[in-house]
Each structure stands twice: as structure tokens, then as C-alpha cells.
């Protein structure tokens, strides 16, 4: 796995809707900019060898890093794969939509649910939103949220940005009725 750079973003919201947030709301993202393992190979039918060679290492790299950056236990999480223009979205999906990748984060965060994801293709500097949901119950509405990320010089056409996001809480000032009240 050839990693060009690692990017960390931490947002901390102190007021929202004009009111103070009782404990500043933190969301962290750590992204690795890697060479697309299938770059320059034309249409590769079987992605398994590339997945086996990279997905677990990526999960092991990013999961502890994003929890370190958050500096709190994660209550919500999500993931992203942003493929450079010469690759397929399938290449990004291959790296993040496998237990080899996600289990590192689930284990590190004591989580059980599937990680919500964004997959897209674009030029360097593309803006992408990572969706986050609760780590043990994806129906908990208070924790549905997203964070916007941009890396000015990535992904290059032959690269993929792989990212994990973690939130220490739900939305600031969350006050929606739970799903159960509508059932």
C-alpha cells in the first residue's frame, strides 16, 4: 500500500442556533491518500487480490488514528472512498465495503452496526460529505449527521482517498422525536 499523505480534520462546535452547546460537539476525520491498487491495469475482473493486499491495512491505519483525533469515545461513525478520475468507483467500494476494513473500526470503537458510507469519483479538491450513524443502533436519529471534507490536492487521477469519521455525540442541539414515536 503506497500512502502519499494522511489528513486529519477535527470540527468542534461551540454554539449552534445561537445557543451554546453544553459540551463542545466534536467530529473527527482521518483520511489516507493512497495509490489506486488497480491503476493502469485496465478493467480488472477480480478485485480480491487488491482487496486482500490493502483493505485490512487501511482499516488498521485509520481506525486508531480517528479515535485518537476525536479524543473521546465514538458514538457515531462513517466512512468514505473517493476515487481519482482514472479509477472506478468500484475500486473505492472494494476497499471500504469489506469486513476486513470495517472490523478494525468496529472493534476499536466497540461498535456493532454497519458503517454508513460515501463513494464517489472526482478531481483533486473535490468536496465530499461523510455520513455518520450511531455505532450500535443505526436507527437512533439524534446521531444521524455528516461532515464535509476537502483535500486540496487529492485524489490524483490514479489515487483513492479512504477516510473514517467519528463523532463523540449526536448533532449539536439535536431534538427530534425518536423513530419509535412514529411507529
Amino acid at each position, binding site marked *: 500500500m503506497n500512502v502519499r499523505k494522511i*489528513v486529519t480534520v477535527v470540527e468542534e462546535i461551540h*454554539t449552534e442556533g445561537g445557543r451554546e452547546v453544553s459540551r463542545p460537539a466534536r467530529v473527527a476525520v482521518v483520511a489516507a491518500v493512497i495509490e489506486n491498487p488497480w491503476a493502469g491495469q485496465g478493467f480488472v475482473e477480480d478485485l480480491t487480490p487488491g482487496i486482500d493486499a490493502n483493505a485490512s491495512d487501511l482499516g488498521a491505519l485509520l481506525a486508531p488514528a480517528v479515535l485518537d483525533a476525536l479524543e473521546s469515545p465514538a458514538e457515531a461513525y462513517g466512512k468514505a472512498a473517493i476515487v481519482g478520475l482514472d479509477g472506478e468507483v468500484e475500486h473505492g467500494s472494494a476497499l471500504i465495503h469489506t469486513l476486513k476494513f470495517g472490523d478494525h473500526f468496529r472493534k476499536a470503537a466497540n461498535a456493532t452496526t454497519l458503517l454508513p458510507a460515501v463513494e464517489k469519483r472526482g478531481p483533486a479538491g473535490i468536496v465530499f460529505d461523510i455520513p455518520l450513524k450511531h455505532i450500535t443502533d443505526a436507527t437512533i436519529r439524534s446521531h444521524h449527521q455528516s461532515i464535509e471534507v476537502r483535500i486540496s490536492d487529492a485524489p490524483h487521477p490514479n489515487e483513492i482517498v479512504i477516510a473514517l469519521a467519528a463523532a463523540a455525540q449526536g448533532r449539536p442541539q439535536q431534538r427530534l422525536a425518536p423513530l419509535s414515536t412514529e411507529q
Partner: protein
Amino acid sequence: MQERIKDRPDDSIGLRKLVLYRDVVLTEAGEAPAQPARRASVAAVIRNPWVGVGPSADLSEQQGQVAPVLAKLLTERLIGALGGVDEIESFGKAAIVGTAGEIEHAGALIHTPYFGNLVREFLQGESIICFADTRAEAGETLIVPLWHKTHAATRSHYQTISARVSDAPRADEIVVIAAASTGPRPHPRIGDRMTDPVVSTETLEVVPS
């Protein structure tokens, strides 16, 4: 001075959010840098204290109240993100004022001793701090220049970092940014003042016309 810098920035400066961006380059042009540098920016989104006051208003009072709090807050976060003040080799600063403000308001927060002197002191630098400023809608990317904190002419440390807050500044807000790096560009090799030949129109064989 430090006792007078308040601990509750939310109240004292109208702080809405803080955004940290940090990157580390592991390979550049296919090779690992000899000195891998961590670079970071910290952006604070605050209420513009001067919205609606008009161009003749004296900016000094709020400048003295707000800028020192920002200097302390932003440098604390930078130092934390980059592994200690001794690690930091270069620095820069920037501000983006929302569309209901003047560029002068951004300048009032970053171009005076209430910010610059304190950032320099907290980051243990000596150089003038290079800067960028603009007025823009929320989500604008600003390229923040950095140079060496004690030897500004050190060419290896001329670099920039992008800073952007997706939902700021609102029209009545200002984004104030401090940025720093723990080292030079990934593969610096464009010499320095000590190694430069004398270059003038007389020394060049081909003079631009």
C-alpha cells in the same frame, strides 16, 4: 497578560466552531521526504464584532479584547496538533471576513500586536508572520502562506496550507486562522540566499525582453 485572557472563548469572542486540519506527507513524487513535515491549520469561526458600525468606527477596543483570546486559543490547538511548540518551525496566519463585514475587520484581528505578537510569543518565533486575508461566502478555500518562524528568508520553509470551513463565514462572521508546519517542503532543492548566484539583467545571457 495571560491572566487577562479569558478561559471561556465561547462567551468572550462569540466562538461558533473550531476546525483543525492537519496533514503529513509520507511520499511525494514517489519518494519519502528526508524530513517528513506535519502541517496544520486551526480556524476559529467567531461573530464579527463590527458588523454595521460603519467605516469610521474605532476598531481598537474589540481588537484588544478578541484578538488575544484568539491568539491563545489557536496556538494552543496548533501546538497540541503538531506535538509541541519545539516541533513547530514555520508559521502563518489568515482571516476570512463574511460579506457583511469589511476586510479591515479581518485585518483588525490578525494584523495588530494583539494577535501577531502573541502568536509569535506562544509559538516561540521571531519572524514577522506572513498572511492571507479575503472577504468571501461560507466555504471559501483560503491558501495560508507559511514561512520560518525565526528565519523568514529560509526558502525551504516557504509553503502553503489550504484552510476551509464548509459553513463559515456567515455574512456576520469572521474566520481567523493560525497555521504552522514542523518542517520544510517535502523535497526542498531550490537553494537559498547563501547559495544563489548574483542574478540581474547584466548577468543573464538571455535577458527577458
